[in-house]
């Protein structure tokens, strides 16, 4: 109700309606307050972990949470030396899984999406629908048989066991198909064929550059999806040195329930692990604007 009252008080002058009006006028206090409240709620755990990582274990349990202490550096050094520096190994593994998996996934999605968008061939729509239905199968349902199958080939507890299942992305294929449809004109393909350009080259030299901004989005989505993945590596891996950061920190937290001394390490590790992603995020924000309903990508 208050919203109505705040807005109802304003009568829009027709002259100001052109362009983006009202910017310089009295700010709407309540809507701004609601928006800021949402921002505070979302920043709270991140702010907490930044402060909590400056506390050693006894400070963590005994001082007011939002009062920083000076133990950040000693926390980082003891985390770095924990189990022979395994924490940085986990970080590196996550970069490898997410980077390598997302790259392979983008290539496969681009190839498939381009073919589905720009060629007419038998079974095209059946293939598209089948691939999309893959979104509906819960990962845990697949993880058990995937584990059993990979175990038969002796592939469990290897980097491949985490990388391979990350390559196929129905959502990535869906997006790539949309980008190919909207960014690669048929006339360009036609004239390249007239010039005798082979299909592989047509894809790599002509289609990929045109789809590039969309493919960056596919890469980012898949990167975050793999970075966030827990279940797959948790099931596939038993060697601590191959863990990604999510599984590593989970095992550390699990040990912390019997050895609370580990809690400050868990907190520091959580803090260090979210920083790279937040930076990646802020640096590449313009690629995150996606409209799943109309499939349009705004640049």
């Amino acid at each position, binding site marked *: 109700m208050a919203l109505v009252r705040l807005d109802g008080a304003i009568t829009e002058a027709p002259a100001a309606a052109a362009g983006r009006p009202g910017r310089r006028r009295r700010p709407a206090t309540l809507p701004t307050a609601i928006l800021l409240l949402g921002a505070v709620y979302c920043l709270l755990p991140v702010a907490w972990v930044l402060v909590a990582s400056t506390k050693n274990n006894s400070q963590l349990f005994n001082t007011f949470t939002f009062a920083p202490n000076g133990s950040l550096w000693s926390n980082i050094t003891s985390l770095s030396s924990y189990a022979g520096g395994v924490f940085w190994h986990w970080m590196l593994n996550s970069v490898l899984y997410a980077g390598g998996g997302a790259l392979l996934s983008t290539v496969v999605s681009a190839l498939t999406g381009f073919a589905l968008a720009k060629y007419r061939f038998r079974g095209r729509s059946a293939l598209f629908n089948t691939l999309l239905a893959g979104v509906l199968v819960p990962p845990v349902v697949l993880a058990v048989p995937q584990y059993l199958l990979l175990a038969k080939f002796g592939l469990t507890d290897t980097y491949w066991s985490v990388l391979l299942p990350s390559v196929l992305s129905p959502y990535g294929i869906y997006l790539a198909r949309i980008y190919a449809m909207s960014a690669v004109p048929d006339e360009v393909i036609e004239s390249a064929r007239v010039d005798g350009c082979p299909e592989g080259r047509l894809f790599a030299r002509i289609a990929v550059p045109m789809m590039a901004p969309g493919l960056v989005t596919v890469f980012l989505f898949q990167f975050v999806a793999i970075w*966030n993945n827990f279940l797959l590596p948790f099931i596939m891996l038993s060697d601590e040195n191959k863990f990604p950061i999510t599984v590593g920190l989970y095992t550390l937290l699990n040990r912390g329930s019997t050895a609370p001394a580990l809690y400050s390490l868990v907190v520091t590790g959580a803090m260090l692990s979210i920083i790279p992603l937040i930076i990646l995020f802020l640096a590449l924000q313009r690629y995150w604007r996606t409209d799943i309903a109309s499939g349009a990508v705004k640049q």
Partner: protein
Amino acid sequence: MKQPRKHTAPRLAPYAFVAPAVALFALLMLIPIGYTLFLSFGKSQVSGLGLGTGARKQVFAGLSNYASGLSDPAFLSSLLRVLVYSLILVPVMLGLALLFALLLDAQRVRFQRFARLSIFLPYAVPTVIASLLWGFLYLPTVSPFPAILARLGLSMPDLFTTNTALFSVANIGVWGGTGFNMIVIYTALRSVPTELYEAARIDGASQVQVALRIKIPMIGPALVLTGVFSIIATLQVFNEPHTLAPLTNTISPDWMPLMKVFDLAFNEQDSYEAAALSVVIAVAMFVFSYGLLRVSNKRVFQGR
């Protein structure tokens, strides 16, 4: 005489292009799904003393795995729990996402850029890490809330009782999912042509009226799709409760349906019943989402 090659779109190229995806789909989806079905109708039979290799083999078990899985009270209560969880989480999360998206799109609201980035930020935090952070915030010994509440003369409720744990887990889902859905809805709002509501504004309609009468109906398809995807995702909840479990006894290893499957497969080593329950969950999920998309299809595509 040579045919002009202009109109002969190559026959083999598209198959070569889709080959990697098809191979991966077969290897990582079709074969595992088939294998799950196969396992779900089997049981292990021990011959002799059960020693040595080959002493155990799989025999046909009919529907017995399904029968025992579906009559397990723990599984049934986890099903009920996940439905309640979804019922709490999805409306709150999408309601907030819509509210924030409308505020981002509204005029005269300040700090829009800051708020957009802040609210989207949790998307960059893996659910396991998010659960870990909230888990600490829920623990009275580490959390800042008891001290703040004490100043107001209140005490912090126990967030891990049988009644509150579901809300504690749902909060993590809301925290992690609101931003992504907000961006999807916001993007849809930005693509609504401004002419549609500039006229209404000139006629003296308030921003709230414009939002309710023009903007929300226009972004119907985006709302339906975020709704369907959110329901599917919440029914598959695993990471959050699984991560919180070490912090409390309230969250049992079979607290949610997928946790039950995991528990059966890897702790109780009963791949057969785990497979049967996987099939049940997958079929339910498929029917459910297909039905939802079917019902909403008309709405989803009328915008085109």
